Each structure stands twice: as C-alpha cells, then as structure tokens.
C-alpha cells in the first residue's frame, strides 16, 4: 500500500518524530511504499541541519536523511510554518536577508498544497503528533 506521514511534533520535545520514524521503517520492511513525509507545526524543527544532540542520543535530522537515502522518500517541510519558526533554505534565507540557513536537501520547503496532494495520493495517511 501507499502510505503518507504527517509529523507535527518537535524533536527532543515530543515523542512523535520517534514514533513516525519507527512506523516508517516498519511499513517499508513489510513491503509497503512510503510516498512522503510532510513536516508541519512544530514538526518543521526535524529538518534543522544545525541540530546537535548529545552523542548518546539519536540525531533525528540525520535519521530522516538516512530514511531518505535508503528508500528515496521525499521529505517536505511546510514553508510558512518553517519560516516563522526560524527554519530557512539557502534561497529563502537570501530572500529574507538572512546570512545563513539551516534547511538543506533532501528536506524541501513547500506549500500546504503538497500536504493535501500527499494525503489524496496515498491509501493511508497517518498523523504523528
């Protein structure tokens, strides 16, 4: 089956990203397909390349990238939710006159239309929050 995931919890504050990652790996191991993960609300913080947790804790940013590399899963981040919370790609940083940025490929800033398209395209759509 075609799955889509919506992640609304922040790393190191909500257990939701951990649950979402485990769910993603499990569904893939069962032979299902994962069309994409959409990060919204506090979930946008999962995309931060500046995340530097202690070495004995999972780096969630890196864990999502690993998921992407192994299975080519799109990682879409709501642009409006991201910008107000201090997350910007190089292009957005430039547009807003910021000197640096913290969102990089494979994470992509995109609009809410992407969330709705993902939900409609998938057989199953699950929120982690």
């Amino acid at each position: 089956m075609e799955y889509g995931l919506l992640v609304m919890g922040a790393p190191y504050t909500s257990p939701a990203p951990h649950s979402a990652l485990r769910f993603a790996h499990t569904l893939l191991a069962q032979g299902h397909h994962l069309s994409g993960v959409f990060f919204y609300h506090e979930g946008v913080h999962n995309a931060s390349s500046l995340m530097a947790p202690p070495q004995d804790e999972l780096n969630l940013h890196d864990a999502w990238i690993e998921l992407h590399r192994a299975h080519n899963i799109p990682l879409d981040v709501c642009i409006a939710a991201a910008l107000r919370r201090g997350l910007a790609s190089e292009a957005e940083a430039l547009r807003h006159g910021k000197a640096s940025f913290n969102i990089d490929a494979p994470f992509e800033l995109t609009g809410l239309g992407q969330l709705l398209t993902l939900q409609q395209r998938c057989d199953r759509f699950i929120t982690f929050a």
Partner: protein
Amino acid sequence: MLHILTKALNSDAAHQMQQAVGEEDIVVLTEEGVQAALKTHWEGWQAYQSRIYLLAEDVAAWGLNTAVTANGLPTVDMNGFVTLTEHHPQIVTWY
C-alpha cells in the same frame, strides 16, 4: 476507522476521541496513551473490548510491562500496528 491516542486518559484528546469512536472502530494507545495500562477501570477497556490495543514498544519504554501482564491487557507491536492500518482507510490521531 482507526483512532490513535498519544495522550493520557484525563486529557482533552482522550475525551474527544471517546466521543468519536464508532462501533466498528479500532483504538491504538501510543506514547503517553499507554498509561491507560494503569487504569483498568477506564470505561474504554469495556467499551472497545477486542478492538483496543496498547503499543508494546511504548509500554516497555514507559515501564509498564508488569502492569500490562498483570492486568492481561491487549498489546500490538509496531508490525501489528502497521497491519491494523492496512485494514482501515481512515486513521485519526488524537494528541
């Protein structure tokens, strides 16, 4: 419909979920929701009998394995959780 509860039983999320669960619906308790293992008198255990599950990995993490065994409560592991979602096109998370 499949309902996922990620918050404790005294939360708004839990109360709202209880109003939303239909007679054929399934309930999976995850994250803080696994604390329901300590509340065997919770009406949900009766109301959703044989269609409610605690997520096993979260039960272990929250230190509730003994309570779940002692109270004979139904669990599902992450594999079983995915299987449950296969059978329910509509999935709603209460958080």
